[in-house]
Protein backbone atom coordinates (compact mmCIF):
# COMPACT_ATOMS: atom_id res chain seq x y z
CA UNK A 1 0.00 0.00 0.00
CA UNK A 2 2.70 2.43 1.04
CA UNK A 3 6.32 2.22 0.01
CA UNK A 4 8.90 4.73 1.16
CA UNK A 5 12.37 4.45 -0.30
CA UNK A 6 15.55 6.30 0.62
CA UNK A 7 13.54 9.27 1.84
CA UNK A 8 15.50 12.35 2.86
CA UNK A 9 13.73 15.45 4.01
CA UNK A 10 14.68 18.56 5.87
CA UNK A 11 12.57 20.22 8.46
CA UNK A 12 13.83 23.65 9.33
CA UNK A 13 17.59 23.68 9.44
CA UNK A 14 18.38 20.10 10.31
CA UNK A 15 18.13 17.12 8.02
CA UNK A 16 15.41 15.21 9.76
CA UNK A 17 15.00 12.16 7.54
CA UNK A 18 18.17 10.49 6.40
CA UNK A 19 17.17 7.72 4.08
CA UNK A 20 13.99 6.14 5.38
CA UNK A 21 12.89 2.80 3.91
CA UNK A 22 9.49 1.63 5.01
CA UNK A 23 6.64 -0.33 3.58
CA UNK A 24 3.13 -0.86 4.83
CA UNK A 25 1.09 -3.71 3.40
CA UNK A 26 -2.57 -3.51 2.41
CA UNK A 27 -4.90 -3.94 5.37
CA UNK A 28 -2.18 -3.83 7.97
CA UNK A 29 -1.82 -1.63 11.02
CA UNK A 30 1.77 -0.66 11.38
CA UNK A 31 3.16 1.15 14.39
CA UNK A 32 6.00 3.60 14.02
CA UNK A 33 7.85 4.00 17.28
CA UNK A 34 10.98 5.57 18.65
CA UNK A 35 12.12 8.27 21.03
CA UNK A 36 11.23 11.90 20.61
CA UNK A 37 12.96 13.82 17.85
CA UNK A 38 13.84 10.74 15.81
CA UNK A 39 11.81 11.92 12.83
CA UNK A 40 8.53 10.03 13.17
CA UNK A 41 6.25 13.02 12.76
CA UNK A 42 8.46 14.41 10.03
CA UNK A 43 8.12 11.14 8.14
CA UNK A 44 4.31 11.38 8.22
CA UNK A 45 4.50 15.00 7.13
CA UNK A 46 6.85 14.09 4.30
CA UNK A 47 4.51 11.35 3.10
CA UNK A 48 1.71 13.92 3.16
CA UNK A 49 3.77 16.43 1.20
CA UNK A 50 3.89 18.87 4.09
CA UNK A 51 7.67 18.96 4.30
CA UNK A 52 9.91 19.20 1.32
CA UNK A 53 11.46 15.95 0.15
CA UNK A 54 15.14 16.17 -0.78
CA UNK A 55 15.65 12.72 -2.14
CA UNK A 56 13.89 9.39 -2.27
CA UNK A 57 10.41 8.29 -3.14
CA UNK A 58 6.97 7.79 -1.67
CA UNK A 59 4.53 5.54 -3.51
CA UNK A 60 0.92 4.77 -2.65
CA UNK A 61 -0.45 1.61 -4.24
CA UNK A 62 2.46 1.63 -6.63
CA UNK A 63 1.85 5.21 -7.77
CA UNK A 64 4.53 7.72 -6.91
CA UNK A 65 3.24 10.70 -4.96
CA UNK A 66 6.66 12.25 -4.44
CA UNK A 67 6.57 16.00 -4.93
CA UNK A 68 2.79 16.17 -5.37
CA UNK A 69 0.98 19.01 -3.62
CA UNK A 70 -0.60 17.93 -0.34
CA UNK A 71 -4.21 18.10 -1.51
CA UNK A 72 -3.44 15.76 -4.37
CA UNK A 73 -1.79 13.24 -2.07
CA UNK A 74 -4.99 13.37 -0.03
CA UNK A 75 -6.99 12.72 -3.20
CA UNK A 76 -4.74 9.73 -3.93
CA UNK A 77 -6.28 8.18 -0.84
CA UNK A 78 -4.07 9.19 2.07
CA UNK A 79 -5.81 10.42 5.19
CA UNK A 80 -3.90 12.32 7.86
CA UNK A 81 -4.57 12.97 11.53
CA UNK A 82 -1.77 15.21 12.78
CA UNK A 83 -0.24 15.43 16.20
CA UNK A 84 -2.37 17.69 18.37
CA UNK A 85 -5.35 16.75 16.15
CA UNK A 86 -5.71 20.20 14.57
CA UNK A 87 -9.45 20.18 14.42
CA UNK A 88 -11.07 23.46 13.34
CA UNK A 89 -11.85 24.68 16.82
CA UNK A 90 -14.24 27.48 15.90
CA UNK A 91 -16.26 25.25 13.57
CA UNK A 92 -19.09 23.01 14.68
CA UNK A 93 -18.51 19.26 14.81
CA UNK A 94 -20.56 18.79 11.66
CA UNK A 95 -18.65 21.53 9.83
CA UNK A 96 -15.38 19.82 10.69
CA UNK A 97 -16.65 16.63 9.10
CA UNK A 98 -18.00 18.50 6.08
CA UNK A 99 -14.58 19.97 5.34
CA UNK A 100 -13.45 16.39 4.79
CA UNK A 101 -16.21 15.98 2.17
CA UNK A 102 -15.42 19.05 0.08
CA UNK A 103 -13.18 17.02 -2.21
CA UNK A 104 -16.18 15.19 -3.64
CA UNK A 105 -18.69 16.46 -6.21
CA UNK A 106 -21.57 18.28 -4.56
CA UNK A 107 -24.02 15.37 -4.87
CA UNK A 108 -21.68 13.01 -3.02
CA UNK A 109 -21.06 15.23 -0.03
CA UNK A 110 -22.86 13.01 2.44
CA UNK A 111 -21.31 11.76 5.66
CA UNK A 112 -21.32 7.95 5.47
CA UNK A 113 -23.57 6.31 8.03
CA UNK A 114 -20.73 4.08 9.26
CA UNK A 115 -18.89 7.12 10.58
CA UNK A 116 -21.69 7.68 13.07
CA UNK A 117 -21.78 3.97 13.89
CA UNK A 118 -18.13 4.15 14.91
CA UNK A 119 -18.45 7.54 16.58
CA UNK A 120 -22.06 8.03 17.74
CA UNK A 121 -21.00 11.01 19.82
CA UNK A 122 -20.33 13.02 16.68
CA UNK A 123 -23.97 12.71 15.65
CA UNK A 124 -25.31 13.61 19.07
CA UNK A 125 -23.08 16.67 19.34
CA UNK A 126 -22.98 17.71 15.70
CA UNK A 127 -23.88 21.34 16.41
CA UNK A 128 -21.45 21.76 19.29
CA UNK A 129 -18.36 23.90 18.76
CA UNK A 130 -15.48 21.49 18.16
CA UNK A 131 -13.14 23.53 20.36
CA UNK A 132 -15.28 22.71 23.39
CA UNK A 133 -14.63 18.98 22.97
CA UNK A 134 -12.29 17.15 25.32
CA UNK A 135 -8.99 15.90 23.94
CA UNK A 136 -10.35 12.41 23.37
CA UNK A 137 -13.47 13.67 21.64
CA UNK A 138 -11.35 15.92 19.44
CA UNK A 139 -9.23 12.93 18.52
CA UNK A 140 -12.31 10.98 17.48
CA UNK A 141 -13.48 13.95 15.45
CA UNK A 142 -10.10 14.28 13.74
CA UNK A 143 -10.11 10.59 12.84
CA UNK A 144 -13.68 10.78 11.57
CA UNK A 145 -12.86 13.91 9.58
CA UNK A 146 -10.09 12.01 7.82
CA UNK A 147 -12.32 8.97 7.28
CA UNK A 148 -15.18 10.80 5.53
CA UNK A 149 -12.73 11.36 2.67
CA UNK A 150 -12.68 7.53 2.24
CA UNK A 151 -8.90 7.10 2.44
CA UNK A 152 -7.14 3.83 1.64
CA UNK A 153 -4.32 4.65 4.00
CA UNK A 154 -4.60 6.52 7.27
CA UNK A 155 -1.63 8.27 8.87
CA UNK A 156 -2.11 8.82 12.60
CA UNK A 157 0.30 10.89 14.62
CA UNK A 158 0.26 10.12 18.35
CA UNK A 159 -3.47 9.56 18.77
CA UNK A 160 -3.09 8.86 22.49
CA UNK A 161 -1.22 12.03 23.33
CA UNK A 162 -2.83 13.95 26.17
CA UNK A 163 -5.87 11.71 26.32
CA UNK A 164 -7.11 9.83 29.35
CA UNK A 165 -6.40 6.06 29.32
CA UNK A 166 -10.01 4.87 29.10
CA UNK A 167 -10.60 6.95 25.98
CA UNK A 168 -7.31 5.79 24.48
CA UNK A 169 -8.55 2.24 24.87
CA UNK A 170 -11.87 3.15 23.27
CA UNK A 171 -10.14 4.81 20.31
CA UNK A 172 -7.84 1.79 19.91
CA UNK A 173 -10.86 -0.52 19.80
CA UNK A 174 -12.62 1.63 17.21
CA UNK A 175 -9.49 1.76 15.03
CA UNK A 176 -9.12 -1.99 15.19
CA UNK A 177 -12.78 -2.42 14.30
CA UNK A 178 -12.53 -0.05 11.32
CA UNK A 179 -9.42 -1.86 10.15
CA UNK A 180 -11.12 -5.24 10.36
CA UNK A 181 -14.41 -4.18 8.83
CA UNK A 182 -13.15 -1.96 6.01
CA UNK A 183 -9.61 -3.18 5.46
CA UNK A 184 -8.26 0.33 6.01
CA UNK A 185 -4.47 0.40 6.15
CA UNK A 186 -3.09 2.40 9.08
CA UNK A 187 0.35 3.76 9.84
CA UNK A 188 0.37 5.04 13.39
CA UNK A 189 3.07 6.94 15.24
CA UNK A 190 2.67 6.09 18.90
CA UNK A 191 4.57 6.01 22.18
CA UNK A 192 1.87 4.18 24.07
CA UNK A 193 2.97 0.54 24.04
CA UNK A 194 -0.34 -0.71 25.44
CA UNK A 195 -2.25 0.81 22.61
CA UNK A 196 0.18 -0.51 20.01
CA UNK A 197 0.13 -4.03 21.37
CA UNK A 198 -3.68 -3.95 21.21
CA UNK A 199 -3.97 -2.97 17.60
CA UNK A 200 -0.76 -3.21 15.57
CA UNK A 201 0.21 -6.08 13.27
CA UNK A 202 3.76 -4.93 12.79
CA UNK A 203 6.12 -2.37 14.04
CA UNK A 204 9.05 -0.20 12.94
CA UNK A 205 11.43 1.75 15.12
CA UNK A 206 13.02 5.01 14.08
CA UNK A 207 16.37 6.26 15.20
CA UNK A 208 18.15 9.38 13.98
CA UNK A 209 16.08 9.81 10.87
CA UNK A 210 16.20 6.17 9.76
CA UNK A 211 14.26 3.00 10.33
CA UNK A 212 16.48 1.13 12.75
CA UNK A 213 14.43 -2.03 13.11
CA UNK A 214 11.21 -3.46 11.78
CA UNK A 215 9.39 -6.61 12.84
CA UNK A 216 6.05 -8.29 13.38
CA UNK A 217 4.19 -7.54 16.60
CA UNK A 218 4.61 -11.15 17.83
CA UNK A 219 8.35 -10.72 17.90
CA UNK A 220 8.02 -7.81 20.31
CA UNK A 221 5.61 -9.77 22.46
CA UNK A 222 8.22 -12.51 22.78
CA UNK A 223 11.18 -10.21 23.30
CA UNK A 224 10.41 -6.99 25.10
CA UNK A 225 14.06 -5.97 25.09
CA UNK A 226 13.45 -4.62 21.59
CA UNK A 227 11.24 -1.95 23.07
CA UNK A 228 13.72 -1.02 25.75
CA UNK A 229 16.44 -0.80 23.16
CA UNK A 230 14.64 1.73 20.97
CA UNK A 231 12.28 3.43 23.34
CA UNK A 232 14.01 3.97 26.70
CA UNK A 233 15.61 7.33 27.18
Amino acid sequence: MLRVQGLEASYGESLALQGVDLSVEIGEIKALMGRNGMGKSTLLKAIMGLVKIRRGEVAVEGRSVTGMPTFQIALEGVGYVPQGREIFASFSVLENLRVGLLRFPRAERVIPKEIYDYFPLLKERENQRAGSFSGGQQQMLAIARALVGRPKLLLLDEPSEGIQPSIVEEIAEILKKINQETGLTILVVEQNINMISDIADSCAFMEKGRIAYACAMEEIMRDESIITRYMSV
Partner: protein
Amino acid sequence: MSAAVQILNGLNYILVLILVAMGLVIIFGLMNVINMAHGEFFLLGAYTVVLTSKMGLGFWVGFIFAPILVGLLGAILEAVLVRRLYHRILDTILATWGVSIVIKQGIILTFGPEGLMVKPPMPEMVTFAGISYPSYRLFIMGVALFVIAATFYLFLKTDFGLGARAVIANPNMAASLGINTRRMYLTTFSLGSAIAGLAGATMAPLMSCDPHMGLGFFIPAFLAILVGGASSLGGILVGGGVIGGAQNAISSVYSPVVAQIVVFSLAIIIIRMRPEGILGRKARD
Protein backbone atom coordinates in the same frame (compact mmCIF):
# COMPACT_ATOMS: atom_id res chain seq x y z
CA MET B 1 -28.60 70.00 3.03
CA SER B 2 -30.94 68.45 5.49
CA ALA B 3 -29.74 66.14 8.19
CA ALA B 4 -31.54 63.20 6.61
CA VAL B 5 -29.67 63.69 3.35
CA GLN B 6 -26.42 63.97 5.30
CA ILE B 7 -27.10 60.70 7.03
CA LEU B 8 -27.97 58.98 3.78
CA ASN B 9 -24.78 60.28 2.16
CA GLY B 10 -22.82 59.05 5.14
CA LEU B 11 -24.43 55.64 4.87
CA ASN B 12 -23.63 55.62 1.18
CA TYR B 13 -19.96 56.26 1.87
CA ILE B 14 -19.83 53.68 4.66
CA LEU B 15 -21.31 50.97 2.45
CA VAL B 16 -18.87 51.58 -0.41
CA LEU B 17 -16.01 51.71 2.08
CA ILE B 18 -17.12 48.36 3.47
CA LEU B 19 -17.14 46.96 -0.07
CA VAL B 20 -13.55 48.06 -0.64
CA ALA B 21 -12.44 46.86 2.80
CA MET B 22 -14.16 43.53 2.28
CA GLY B 23 -12.15 42.70 -0.82
CA LEU B 24 -9.01 43.66 1.04
CA VAL B 25 -9.78 41.63 4.14
CA ILE B 26 -10.82 38.51 2.22
CA ILE B 27 -7.44 38.49 0.53
CA PHE B 28 -5.60 39.27 3.74
CA GLY B 29 -7.51 36.77 5.84
CA LEU B 30 -6.99 33.92 3.44
CA MET B 31 -3.50 34.47 2.18
CA ASN B 32 -1.91 36.92 4.60
CA VAL B 33 -1.27 39.15 1.62
CA ILE B 34 -1.73 42.86 1.99
CA ASN B 35 -2.68 43.91 -1.51
CA MET B 36 -1.36 47.44 -1.92
CA ALA B 37 -2.82 47.54 -5.43
CA HIS B 38 -6.35 47.19 -4.07
CA GLY B 39 -6.98 50.93 -4.38
CA GLU B 40 -5.86 50.75 -8.00
CA PHE B 41 -8.32 47.92 -8.63
CA PHE B 42 -10.97 50.36 -7.45
CA LEU B 43 -9.42 52.92 -9.82
CA LEU B 44 -9.53 50.49 -12.73
CA GLY B 45 -13.18 49.76 -12.02
CA ALA B 46 -13.95 53.48 -12.19
CA TYR B 47 -11.95 53.97 -15.39
CA THR B 48 -13.68 51.02 -17.04
CA VAL B 49 -16.83 53.10 -16.70
CA VAL B 50 -15.00 56.21 -17.93
CA LEU B 51 -13.85 54.26 -20.97
CA THR B 52 -17.22 52.77 -21.89
CA SER B 53 -18.83 56.19 -21.47
CA LYS B 54 -16.22 57.72 -23.76
CA MET B 55 -16.70 54.99 -26.32
CA GLY B 56 -20.41 55.69 -26.31
CA LEU B 57 -21.28 52.31 -24.79
CA GLY B 58 -22.63 54.05 -21.76
CA PHE B 59 -22.35 53.54 -18.04
CA TRP B 60 -24.12 50.23 -17.64
CA VAL B 61 -21.83 48.27 -19.94
CA GLY B 62 -18.87 49.49 -17.90
CA PHE B 63 -20.69 48.71 -14.69
CA ILE B 64 -21.11 45.08 -15.78
CA PHE B 65 -17.63 44.74 -17.20
CA ALA B 66 -15.68 46.43 -14.39
CA PRO B 67 -15.88 43.57 -11.87
CA ILE B 68 -15.24 40.97 -14.59
CA LEU B 69 -12.22 42.78 -15.96
CA VAL B 70 -10.72 43.63 -12.59
CA GLY B 71 -11.45 40.13 -11.30
CA LEU B 72 -9.55 38.68 -14.25
CA LEU B 73 -6.68 41.05 -13.66
CA GLY B 74 -6.63 39.99 -10.01
CA ALA B 75 -6.42 36.34 -11.08
CA ILE B 76 -3.51 37.10 -13.38
CA LEU B 77 -1.72 39.08 -10.69
CA GLU B 78 -2.15 36.20 -8.25
CA ALA B 79 -0.89 33.61 -10.71
CA VAL B 80 2.17 35.46 -11.97
CA LEU B 81 3.24 37.44 -8.92
CA VAL B 82 1.57 36.96 -5.57
CA ARG B 83 1.74 33.14 -5.73
CA ARG B 84 5.51 33.29 -5.73
CA LEU B 85 5.64 35.38 -2.61
CA TYR B 86 3.47 33.58 -0.08
CA HIS B 87 4.69 33.73 3.50
CA ARG B 88 6.80 36.76 2.62
CA ILE B 89 4.54 39.56 3.80
CA LEU B 90 7.00 42.37 3.22
CA ASP B 91 7.76 41.22 -0.31
CA THR B 92 4.08 41.01 -1.22
CA ILE B 93 3.60 44.54 0.07
CA LEU B 94 6.46 45.79 -2.09
CA ALA B 95 5.42 43.80 -5.15
CA THR B 96 1.76 44.82 -5.04
CA TRP B 97 2.80 48.40 -4.32
CA GLY B 98 4.86 48.24 -7.50
CA VAL B 99 1.83 46.98 -9.37
CA SER B 100 -0.21 49.87 -7.99
CA ILE B 101 2.31 52.36 -9.36
CA VAL B 102 2.29 50.70 -12.77
CA ILE B 103 -1.51 50.78 -12.92
CA LYS B 104 -1.68 54.40 -11.79
CA GLN B 105 0.93 55.54 -14.31
CA GLY B 106 -0.73 53.46 -17.00
CA ILE B 107 -3.97 55.33 -16.33
CA ILE B 108 -2.15 58.68 -16.48
CA LEU B 109 -0.54 57.73 -19.80
CA THR B 110 -3.84 56.57 -21.27
CA PHE B 111 -6.34 59.04 -19.87
CA GLY B 112 -4.18 61.91 -18.67
CA PRO B 113 -3.75 63.18 -15.13
CA GLU B 114 -6.87 65.35 -15.02
CA GLY B 115 -10.18 64.49 -13.42
CA LEU B 116 -12.81 63.03 -15.74
CA MET B 117 -16.54 63.08 -15.24
CA VAL B 118 -18.96 60.30 -16.01
CA LYS B 119 -22.47 61.27 -17.06
CA PRO B 120 -24.85 60.35 -14.26
CA PRO B 121 -26.64 57.16 -15.31
CA MET B 122 -29.70 57.84 -13.16
CA PRO B 123 -30.15 61.62 -12.88
CA GLU B 124 -33.64 61.49 -11.38
CA MET B 125 -34.34 62.48 -7.82
CA VAL B 126 -36.56 60.39 -5.64
CA THR B 127 -38.81 61.99 -3.09
CA PHE B 128 -39.74 60.06 0.00
CA ALA B 129 -40.53 60.92 3.60
CA GLY B 130 -40.37 64.59 2.74
CA ILE B 131 -36.83 64.56 1.36
CA SER B 132 -35.55 64.53 -2.16
CA TYR B 133 -32.61 62.22 -2.84
CA PRO B 134 -30.66 61.15 -5.97
CA SER B 135 -31.96 57.79 -7.15
CA TYR B 136 -28.47 56.70 -8.21
CA ARG B 137 -27.21 56.97 -4.65
CA LEU B 138 -30.02 54.72 -3.52
CA PHE B 139 -29.03 52.32 -6.28
CA ILE B 140 -25.43 52.29 -4.99
CA MET B 141 -26.61 51.50 -1.50
CA GLY B 142 -28.70 48.68 -2.85
CA VAL B 143 -25.80 47.23 -4.82
CA ALA B 144 -23.41 47.56 -1.88
CA LEU B 145 -25.86 45.95 0.54
CA PHE B 146 -26.50 43.15 -1.89
CA VAL B 147 -22.80 42.43 -2.47
CA ILE B 148 -22.01 42.63 1.24
CA ALA B 149 -24.85 40.24 2.04
CA ALA B 150 -23.87 37.92 -0.81
CA THR B 151 -20.26 37.82 0.40
CA PHE B 152 -21.35 37.01 3.93
CA TYR B 153 -23.61 34.30 2.58
CA LEU B 154 -20.83 32.90 0.40
CA PHE B 155 -18.35 32.67 3.24
CA LEU B 156 -20.66 31.66 6.06
CA LYS B 157 -23.29 29.48 4.43
CA THR B 158 -21.90 27.75 1.34
CA ASP B 159 -19.52 24.84 0.88
CA PHE B 160 -17.08 27.14 -0.88
CA GLY B 161 -17.10 29.36 2.19
CA LEU B 162 -16.56 26.36 4.48
CA GLY B 163 -13.47 25.43 2.48
CA ALA B 164 -12.22 29.00 2.48
CA ARG B 165 -12.68 29.26 6.25
CA ALA B 166 -10.86 25.96 6.70
CA VAL B 167 -7.96 27.31 4.66
CA ILE B 168 -7.95 30.51 6.72
CA ALA B 169 -7.93 28.56 9.99
CA ASN B 170 -5.29 26.01 9.00
CA PRO B 171 -4.06 25.82 5.40
CA ASN B 172 -1.97 22.66 5.90
CA MET B 173 -4.82 20.79 7.52
CA ALA B 174 -7.23 21.93 4.81
CA ALA B 175 -4.84 20.68 2.13
CA SER B 176 -4.43 17.39 4.00
CA LEU B 177 -8.20 16.98 3.72
CA GLY B 178 -8.02 17.34 -0.05
CA ILE B 179 -8.75 21.04 -0.49
CA ASN B 180 -6.85 22.63 -3.35
CA THR B 181 -5.47 25.60 -1.47
CA ARG B 182 -3.82 27.08 -4.56
CA ARG B 183 -7.07 27.24 -6.45
CA MET B 184 -8.73 28.66 -3.36
CA TYR B 185 -6.15 31.46 -3.25
CA LEU B 186 -6.64 32.22 -6.93
CA THR B 187 -10.43 32.32 -6.69
CA THR B 188 -10.40 34.44 -3.58
CA PHE B 189 -7.87 36.93 -4.85
CA SER B 190 -9.89 37.30 -8.02
CA LEU B 191 -13.12 37.68 -6.04
CA GLY B 192 -11.63 40.34 -3.74
CA SER B 193 -10.33 42.23 -6.76
CA ALA B 194 -13.68 42.04 -8.55
CA ILE B 195 -15.45 43.56 -5.55
CA ALA B 196 -12.99 46.48 -5.60
CA GLY B 197 -13.59 46.91 -9.33
CA LEU B 198 -17.34 46.95 -8.76
CA ALA B 199 -16.97 49.52 -5.97
CA GLY B 200 -14.92 51.75 -8.29
CA ALA B 201 -17.47 51.47 -11.06
CA THR B 202 -20.39 52.39 -8.80
CA MET B 203 -18.56 55.43 -7.41
CA ALA B 204 -17.36 56.76 -10.78
CA PRO B 205 -20.45 58.87 -11.56
CA LEU B 206 -20.40 60.46 -8.10
CA MET B 207 -16.87 61.79 -8.14
CA SER B 208 -14.35 63.23 -10.47
CA CYS B 209 -12.28 60.26 -11.68
CA ASP B 210 -8.59 60.95 -11.39
CA PRO B 211 -5.59 58.61 -11.09
CA HIS B 212 -5.37 59.11 -7.33
CA MET B 213 -8.94 58.29 -6.42
CA GLY B 214 -8.00 54.73 -5.43
CA LEU B 215 -5.89 55.90 -2.53
CA GLY B 216 -8.80 57.92 -1.20
CA PHE B 217 -10.63 54.65 -0.60
CA PHE B 218 -7.71 52.33 0.07
CA ILE B 219 -6.47 54.21 3.13
CA PRO B 220 -9.80 54.49 4.96
CA ALA B 221 -10.58 50.88 4.00
CA PHE B 222 -7.28 49.83 5.50
CA LEU B 223 -8.03 51.82 8.65
CA ALA B 224 -11.47 50.22 8.81
CA ILE B 225 -9.88 46.79 8.85
CA LEU B 226 -7.34 47.73 11.51
CA VAL B 227 -10.03 49.28 13.67
CA GLY B 228 -12.62 46.55 13.18
CA GLY B 229 -10.26 43.60 13.32
CA ALA B 230 -9.10 41.47 10.42
CA SER B 231 -10.01 38.11 11.91
CA SER B 232 -13.70 38.19 11.06
CA LEU B 233 -15.89 39.57 8.33
CA GLY B 234 -18.07 41.21 10.96
CA GLY B 235 -15.12 43.35 11.99
CA ILE B 236 -15.30 45.21 8.70
CA LEU B 237 -18.89 46.23 9.29
CA VAL B 238 -17.89 47.77 12.61
CA GLY B 239 -14.65 49.26 11.27
CA GLY B 240 -16.28 50.60 8.13
CA GLY B 241 -19.06 52.10 10.22
CA VAL B 242 -16.69 53.80 12.66
CA ILE B 243 -14.21 55.12 10.09
CA GLY B 244 -16.69 55.97 7.34
CA GLY B 245 -19.20 57.44 9.76
CA ALA B 246 -16.66 59.61 11.55
CA GLN B 247 -15.08 60.76 8.31
CA ASN B 248 -18.41 61.74 6.81
CA ALA B 249 -19.92 63.36 9.88
CA ILE B 250 -16.86 65.46 10.63
CA SER B 251 -16.33 66.56 7.02
CA SER B 252 -19.88 67.80 6.78
CA VAL B 253 -19.65 69.79 10.01
CA TYR B 254 -16.06 71.04 9.70
CA SER B 255 -13.95 70.13 6.67
CA PRO B 256 -12.51 67.01 5.04
CA VAL B 257 -9.05 67.94 6.36
CA VAL B 258 -10.22 68.11 9.95
CA ALA B 259 -12.05 64.84 9.35
CA GLN B 260 -8.87 63.15 8.17
CA ILE B 261 -6.94 64.31 11.22
CA VAL B 262 -9.66 63.21 13.62
CA VAL B 263 -10.17 59.86 11.89
CA PHE B 264 -6.48 59.05 11.91
CA SER B 265 -6.21 59.99 15.59
CA LEU B 266 -9.29 57.95 16.37
CA ALA B 267 -7.84 54.97 14.52
CA ILE B 268 -4.56 55.27 16.42
CA ILE B 269 -6.35 55.41 19.76
CA ILE B 270 -8.56 52.42 18.97
CA ILE B 271 -5.67 50.35 17.69
CA ARG B 272 -3.63 51.34 20.75
CA MET B 273 -6.40 50.18 23.06
CA ARG B 274 -7.46 47.14 21.07
CA PRO B 275 -4.57 45.98 18.88
CA GLU B 276 -6.64 43.15 17.44
CA GLY B 277 -9.46 45.48 16.46
CA ILE B 278 -12.84 46.09 18.04
CA LEU B 279 -14.16 42.64 17.17
CA GLY B 280 -10.74 41.00 17.02
CA ARG B 281 -9.80 38.01 19.07
CA LYS B 282 -6.39 37.55 20.56
CA ALA B 283 -5.26 34.79 18.26
CA ARG B 284 -6.76 32.66 15.57
CA ASP B 285 -7.05 28.97 16.16
